[in-house]
């Protein structure tokens, strides 16, 4: 029974991997930016499913959550910035076609050969109760402080970028001395107005 279950999980993993690669390819084949974005989302959801099947529940579900929201927003930017957003006119997202294809094929072959040739260790002990915790500890256990600092620095960068990029700051809204009682906004409404 257990062996059968393992077999089923293996084949589902393989199917998800195939789907992930196929929809990854479709990202470059679709001419519509909406379709390309959602093909990428399909690919990422398959990856989330793989992580779930590997027993990393939290990471798998978080991948699904983050990637859905991220791709939904990304679709807006793809439609906004790419030429031919709706795919009504032919365009291609690939540059240096032959070179890129050759590099991809070689990298894929090397990685696949690595899977087959690597001397994989056999299992020692038993699987941990909480693989997510173990993965987190082994990924960044000793560097936790560095990672936390990095996270803060990244977040501060995001906020600073938005502050620098915004066209209307608080001085435009509340006057040079910030003393205006009502914000001077092109669109009225919102908190305290």
């Amino acid at each position, binding site marked *: 029974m257990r062996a059968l279950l393992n077999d089923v999980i293996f084949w589902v993993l393989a199917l998800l991997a195939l789907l992930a690669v196929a929809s990854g390819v479709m990202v470059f084949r679709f001419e519509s930016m909406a379709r390309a974005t959602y093909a990428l989302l399909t690919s990422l959801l398959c990856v989330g499913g793989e992580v779930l099947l590997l027993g990393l529940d939290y990471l798998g579900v*978080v991948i699904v959550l983050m990637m859905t929201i991220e*791709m939904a927003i990304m679709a807006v930017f793809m439609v906004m910035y790419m030429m031919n957003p709706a795919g009504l006119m032919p365009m291609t997202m690939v540059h240096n076609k032959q070179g890129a294809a050759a590099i991809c094929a070689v990298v894929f072959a090397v990685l696949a050969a690595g899977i087959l040739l690597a001397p994989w260790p056999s299992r020692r002990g038993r699987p941990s109760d909480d693989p997510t915790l173990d993965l987190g500890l082994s990924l960044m256990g000793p560097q936790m402080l560095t990672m936390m600092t990095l996270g803060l620095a990244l977040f501060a960068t995001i906020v600073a970028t938005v502050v620098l990029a915004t066209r209307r700051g608080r001085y435009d809204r509340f006057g040079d001395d910030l003393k205006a009682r009502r914000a001077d906004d092109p669109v009225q409404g919102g908190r305290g107005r």
Partner: protein
Amino acid sequence: MPDAAPLWAAVVLPVALVVAAVVTAGFDAVLSGSAERGPAGGVREAGLRATAPLREALRLLVQQPRRTTAADRLLGRLGVVLVPVAAVLAGAVLPWGFCAVSDPSVGIVWFNAMEALAWAAVWLAGWGPNSALSLIGGYRFLAQGLAYELPHMFAITTAALGAESLRVGDVVAAQDGLWFAVWMPAAFVVYLLSALAMAFWGPFGHPLSRDAAGGAEAELAGVDRLVFLGGRWLLLVVTAGFSVPLFLGGGHGPLLPGWAWTLLKTAAVLALLVAGRRALPVLRMERYMELAWMVLVPLTLLQALFVAVVVLNR
């Protein structure tokens, strides 16, 4: 501890959700009817008004679907179908009494991930028909998502923090004595707001509002429209229902069995939302955005801090 539900529960769940959605829509139709045309004259008229959503559903079943020029049928259909699918998948972790179809160790994150599929669904449904007004509706929902999602995440995180677990069953078990709604009122209220926003319904119906000729639903007709709007009711039922295990003690309560309490509490939350809708205007998203990020995010963070301190001192 929650029991594992039998396998047939997976089949019953969508049916139960649909029944709940029909009842809720009927209640809403009765309230709208009495607001627009005065109170019902008798039981027969009230019954007619209550079954109006059902009759509308039957009408949509036989209506001709609308075709638009150069539509992206694949993505449009995907978006329409994704709404009820996301609702049912999110409902899989809803405990009925103390027994859910599935109670994974990360149930709360699962619920959040499934309701995030609605972001994709509404935008896709708006994008599909190649129509400006429906696309505007789709974009509006993304803006709405950005506004409600952060306070919403902090609210459900607070409930998980109080139970020190992401498992829905543990959250219910932690409310054996005191409901979370009592000592996390801010998180509870924010959750109810975001439940409405997730279902893009009532005061948060801007993505489908009349000023954009129906927004994301503008070009939907026939079965497409039925699946999309029916899926929205399902989403409302599921998100309202999830507030029961998160904040209202799940199946805990005196005298009655767990399933009856779940049913009662879910009905009460839905009644509150449906009745409260009549008192609130439809919100423009930039207005809610400002409220959400300037007031609700700090408020939910303070609430989470309070709960964290309580949990640390337990």
